[in-house]
C-alpha cells in the first residue's frame, strides 16, 4: 500500500512546514488559530490511531480508552496532587501506553482479530467510561474543570498561538514517527502482519510481540492527545473523553485520509476540521458536518479504498535510463 507511494519531495515538505509555521501570523484571528489547533489535534490523534489501525492493520474502535486515560491521568495529577501540567504530558503518555499494553496483551493473547478486536476495544473503553463516571477521584459524571491560570509554566498560553505551536510540534513528532515506521524494519514487520498474519508468522516474525509494541506506541501518543485536549478545553468528563465519538473521529480521520500512510491522517484531519468548523460557521444546525463525513466515509470505502491520499499519488515517472 504505502510502499508504492512515491516519496514526497522535500520541497513540498518545506513548503507545508513553512505554511504551518506562518499560519498564526497570517491569520491571527481567534477563529483561524482555533481552526488550526483543531486540525492539528485531529491530525495528531488520527496519526496515533494510524500506527495501530493503519500500519499494523489492527482495526480499533476503542482508541478513546487511551485518549481518556491520558486526559484523566494528567488532570488528576494536576488537580488532586498539585503537579505541574507539563508533568502531565509524560504521565499521559505512560497512562495511554499502559492501557494500550494491557488491552493488547489480553486480546492478542486470546487471538482476537478483525471485528472481534474492534468490539473488545470498544468494550474496554466503555468499562473505563463507567469507572470514570462512578468514582470520586475522577469527579464522576460532573467531570473535572481545570481552573484558568494563564502562564506558559501552567500550560495555559495567553495567546492561542502558544497552543498552536505546541500541537504543531506534537504533530510533527507523530509524522516523524510514522515516517520512521514506514522505513524501519519494525514497520516492515507490521506491514507483513497487516497483509497476512499467518505468512508473517511463517517468516519468523513474533506477531504477538510486534502487535503489543505498536499498541504501546499508539496508546502513548493517543494519551498525549488526551492531555492536550484537557489543557486546551480546560474541561473533561467521561462521555467526552471516553465516548465512542472520539474513537470514531480518529478512525475517520485516518481512513478517509489514507490508513497506513504517513500523510493520510493530515489530509483527513484538515478535512474534518473544515467540515466541522465550516458548517458551524454557516449554520447552527448540529450534525451537518458529520453527515458530510459519514457520506464521505461510504464513498471513500467504495471508490478510493486507500483514502484521499490516492488522489495525490503521483504516477510513477518513466525511467530515463533503461537497464
Amino acid at each position: 500500500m504505502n510502499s508504492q507511494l512515491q516519496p514526497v519531495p522535500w520541497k513540498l515538505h518545506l513548503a507545508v512546514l513553512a505554511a504551518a509555521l506562518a499560519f498564526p501570523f497570517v491569520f491571527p484571528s481567534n477563529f483561524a488559530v482555533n481552526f488550526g489547533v483543531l486540525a492539528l489535534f485531529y491530525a495528531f490523534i488520527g496519526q496515533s490511531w494510524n500506527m495501530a489501525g493503519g500500519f499494523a492493520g489492527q482495526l480499533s474502535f476503542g482508541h478513546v480508552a487511551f485518549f481518556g486515560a491520558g486526559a484523566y491521568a494528567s488532570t488528576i495529577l494536576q488537580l488532586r496532587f498539585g503537579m505541574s501540567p507539563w508533568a502531565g504530558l509524560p504521565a499521559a503518555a505512560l497512562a495511554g501506553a499502559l492501557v494500550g499494553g494491557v488491552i493488547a496483551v489480553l486480546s492478542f493473547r486470546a487471538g482476537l482479530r478483525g471485528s472481534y478486536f474492534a468490539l473488545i476495544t470498544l468494550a474496554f473503553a466503555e468499562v473505563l467510561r463507567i469507572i470514570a463516571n462512578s468514582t470520586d477521584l475522577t469527579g464522576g459524571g460532573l467531570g473535572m474543570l481545570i481552573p484558568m491560570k494563564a502562564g506558559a509554566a501552567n500550560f495555559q498560553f495567553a495567546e492561542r498561538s502558544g497552543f498552536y505551536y505546541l500541537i504543531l510540534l506534537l504533530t510533527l513528532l507523530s509524522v516523524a514517527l510514522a515516517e520512521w515506521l514506514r522505513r524501519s524494519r519494525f514497520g516492515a514487520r507490521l506491514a507483513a502482519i497487516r497483509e497476512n498474519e499467518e505468512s508473517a508468522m511463517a517468516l519468523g516474525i513474533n506477531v504477538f510481540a510486534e502487535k503489543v509494541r505498536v499498541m504501546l506506541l499508539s496508546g502513548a501518543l493517543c494519551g498525549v492527545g488526551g492531555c492536550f485536549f484537557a489543557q486546551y478545553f480546560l474541561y473533561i468528563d467521561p462521555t467526552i473523553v471516553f465516548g465512542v465519538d472520539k474513537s470514531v473521529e480518529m478512525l475517520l480521520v485516518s481512513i478517509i485520509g489514507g490508513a497506513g500512510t504517513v500523510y493520510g491522517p493530515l489530509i483527513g484531519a484538515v478535512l474534518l476540521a473544515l467540515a466541522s468548523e465550516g458548517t458551524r460557521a454557516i449554520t447552527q444546525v448540529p450534525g451537518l458536518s458529520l453527515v458530510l463525513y459519514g457520506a464521505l466515509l461510504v464513498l471513500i470505502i467504495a471508490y478510493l479504498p486507500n483514502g484521499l491520499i490516492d488522489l495525490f499519488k503521483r504516477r510513477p515517472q518513466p525511467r530515463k535510463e533503461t537497464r
Partner: protein
Amino acid sequence: MDPTILAAAAINGLLLGGMYTLVASGLTLIYGVLHIINFAHGSMLMLAMFGVFYLLTKFGIDPYLSMLVMVPAMYGLGYAIYKGVIGRLSSGRDENILLITLGLSILIENIALMLFKGDSRTISVSYSDTMIELGPTLVPLPKLISFAVAMLLCAALALFIQRTDTGRAIRAVAKERVGARLVGIDVDRIFAISYGIGLATLGAAACLLMPIFYVSPTIGHVFVLVAFTVVVLGGMGSFLGAVVGGMIVGLTESFGGLFLGESLGQIGISLIFILILLLRPSGLFGARR
C-alpha cells in the same frame, strides 16, 4: 437482602432481557449469514422508532398495530440498502462492509439530529400505565407484551431458518458461500434478504419498545453495545443464544444496578462482553469457527 427485592430485580432483569433479545435477534441473523457486524443496527432501530412515533402522533395508529406497516417497511429498507449501498460498494471485503455500516450509522444518526434535534420524545397510549401483578412486584403490561413477543419472534425466526426453502438457502450461504452459489442459490439476493429480515425485526422491536421507552436521535447508542454483547454471548447466528444471552445481560444489568448503584452497575455488561470475547469468542451456542 430482602428476597422480595431480589425477586423483583430478577423479574425486572428478565423483562429487560426480553427487550435486548428483541434488538439482538436481527443482529445475530445478519452476523450469522453475512459474517459482518452491522454497526448501523442502532441507528436503524432509531429510524424505526421515529416511524412508530409519527404513525401514532400524525395518523393515530396504535404502536402495536403499526407493526403491520413497520415490519414490511423496514424489510424493504434493509433489502434496498443492501442491494444499493452495502453490496454494491463494499467490493465484498468484510472490513469494508463494517466501515460502510459505520458510515451509514453516522450519516443516519446525524440526519436525524438535524431533523428532529436532540430532544427525546415519548408517546402515551391508554395501556402505558396498566400494571399487572407478577409475584412480588407490579410490571407494566407493555413490558410483558414485549417480552412475550420477543420470545415468539425468536421462535418464529428459528423455525423460518430451519423449515422454509429461503431459510435453507440462508443457512447454506452462511456455511459455504461458494458451494451455495454452485447449487444455484443467488447469494447476493440471500444477503439482501437476510439484511432485510434483520431490519424487519427492528421494525417489530420499535413497535414494542415505543410504549415503554423514549426515542431520540442517539437512542441507538443505548442498545448497540448491549445488543453486540447479547449476540456475542449467545453465539453469533444463534436465536436460542439471543434469548439466553438477552436474559443473562438483562439480569446482570438489573442486579448490577441493585448491588453497585446505577452508575457503576452498568459495568457488568461490558465485563461480560470482554470476558466472553477473551475466553469463548464463539459464545454459548455458536458454532466454533
